[in-house]
């Protein structure tokens, strides 16, 4: 029963989603929309599960003193801080005791983690966590320059939530991807040698696309641009299409295996 019911459910819902495509009736479309919405909503619960898993894995790394374990505090503090920012916002222009509150809240978290990973001094850490929590509560009660906003999505518009997005997430994300330029360049230096026809084609196509906006080619610039566009729109399209057909067939075959209960890896062990 533990393994049979999920297989039956997968088969039922999978076959329904295939079947509904061939039934152009509004009730079929209505159920289709329903199921899509349901999937998204359950996905949010899965995200909560992921957050808990991140917490557990990080605490476990701290407890077992894995290599670079100290950085896991940073992950948890970042997680907790951003969550708080998502549900708080200013009531006016002043910040009041908001930042001391954030420090106290994070200290509470760190002390609770310490209490759960340490063998001795558990009482000390729990006591400190209690004091920090008391400070947080006092600030929440007496400071009305900011507040928790569970009612509206105001937290998403709050200065600090957006500031963390703009000044932490975006710089790290953009810089990580821009680093690939260096790694790609070093890979290109090794790979781009016109040793045979295939390597020469690779080299020429890459050069034409990379140099298409280069203004230093003078009268040649427009031709480079046109050749690059042609490369992207014709031979590139053809090969991409061949790849996409292969990928599509693979996905369809995998979906069929899942629906028919041949592939059951999603259930895990047990």
């Amino acid at each position, binding site marked *: 029963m533990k393994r049979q019911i999920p297989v039956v459910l997968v088969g039922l819902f999978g076959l329904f989603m295939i079947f509904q495509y061939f039934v152009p009736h509004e009730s079929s479309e209505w159920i289709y929309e329903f199921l899509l919405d349901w999937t998204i909503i*359950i996905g949010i619960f899965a995200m909560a599960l992921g957050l808990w898993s991140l917490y557990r894995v990080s605490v476990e790394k701290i407890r077992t003193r894995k290599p670079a374990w100290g950085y896991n505090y940073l992950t948890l503090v970042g997680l*907790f801080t*951003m969550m708080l920012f998502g549900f708080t916002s200013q009531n006016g222009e002043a910040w009041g005791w908001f930042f001391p509150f954030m420090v106290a809240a994070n200290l509470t978290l760190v002390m609770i983690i310490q209490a759960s990973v340490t063998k001795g001094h558990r009482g000390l850490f729990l006591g400190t966590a209690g004091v920090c929590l008391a400070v947080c509560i006092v600030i929440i009660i007496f400071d009305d320059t900011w507040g928790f906003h569970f009612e509206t999505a105001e937290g998403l518009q709050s200065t600090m939530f957006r500031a963390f997005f703009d000044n932490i997430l975006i710089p790290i994300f953009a810089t990580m991807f821009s680093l690939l330029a260096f790694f790609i360049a070093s890979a290109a230096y090794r790979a781009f040698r016109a040793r045979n026809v295939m390597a020469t084609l690779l080299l020429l196509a890459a050069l034409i696309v990379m140099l298409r906006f280069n203004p230093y080619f003078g009268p040649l610039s427009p031709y480079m641009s046109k050749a690059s566009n042609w490369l992207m729109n014709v031979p590139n399209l053809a090969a991409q299409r061949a790849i996409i057909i292969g990928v599509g067939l693979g996905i369809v075959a995998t*979906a*069929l295996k899942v629906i028919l209960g041949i592939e059951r890896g999603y259930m895990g062990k047990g």
Partner: protein
Amino acid sequence: MKKSTLIVMAVVVVLFLLSWVLKASALQPEQGSYILRGFLVTFAAFLTLAVMSFLYQDNPFYKFAEHLFVGVSAAFWMCMGFWTTIVQNLIPRLSTSLADYFMVPQRPEGLNLFFYTPVILGILLLMRLSPRGGWISRWPLAFIVGTTAGLNFIRYLRSDFIKQISSTFVPLLGTQWEGIGPFLSNLDLSASGQLVLLLSNWVVFLGVFTGLIYFFFSKEHKGAFGVGSRVGIWILMITFGASFGYTVMGRISLLVGRITFLFGTWLELI
């Protein structure tokens, strides 16, 4: 920790504080929050440089940025998911009083009690945390897997298979013969002259066909099949080169963005 590492860290901290003070003082005090804005710009610059330092080797600054990113981005997506899906999509369908509390507009179609099902399934998904009831979480998982498999079956069969094949059936013998003059006119690669279009159509058709031959491994690539396979790999090489060039240009533009931030927004040198 080595003494040299500690010295480097101390220098970075001093430089960070110096930059914060200078940046805050450079910002207009009358605009408000200049200390906070100074901190955020300095922190963004620090994170950018910390990630870039990976080019030298893995180091504590890179690890700092990496771990912070994991925590902050997880919380960011959780908050976004909560407000956009749970509050906007689910709550107005479940309860009018809850919708009033969260200040979200009610749905024109009214309440829909069927939406308690994804909530129940979501809670069942959280049972994964329980050592004994973990198997129940397979039911919502089966719902998601089944629905997605059925959806992907149809979606990829249509978009990645049927549509790609039908788009490959392009006119290979031209459309309407208007004489040799119009046929040979507009020979520019970017133009849509009859000859250029015809050649492009042939390249697309042969490219897809030979590309698929290359990916067909059930028959040995010998004779005419081998020739087709060889042409296929040439087309694929052109595609890989073009994709490579395209990716490099994208990454370079990101890098330019980060450099502009460092020298413009942070150091104000450009």
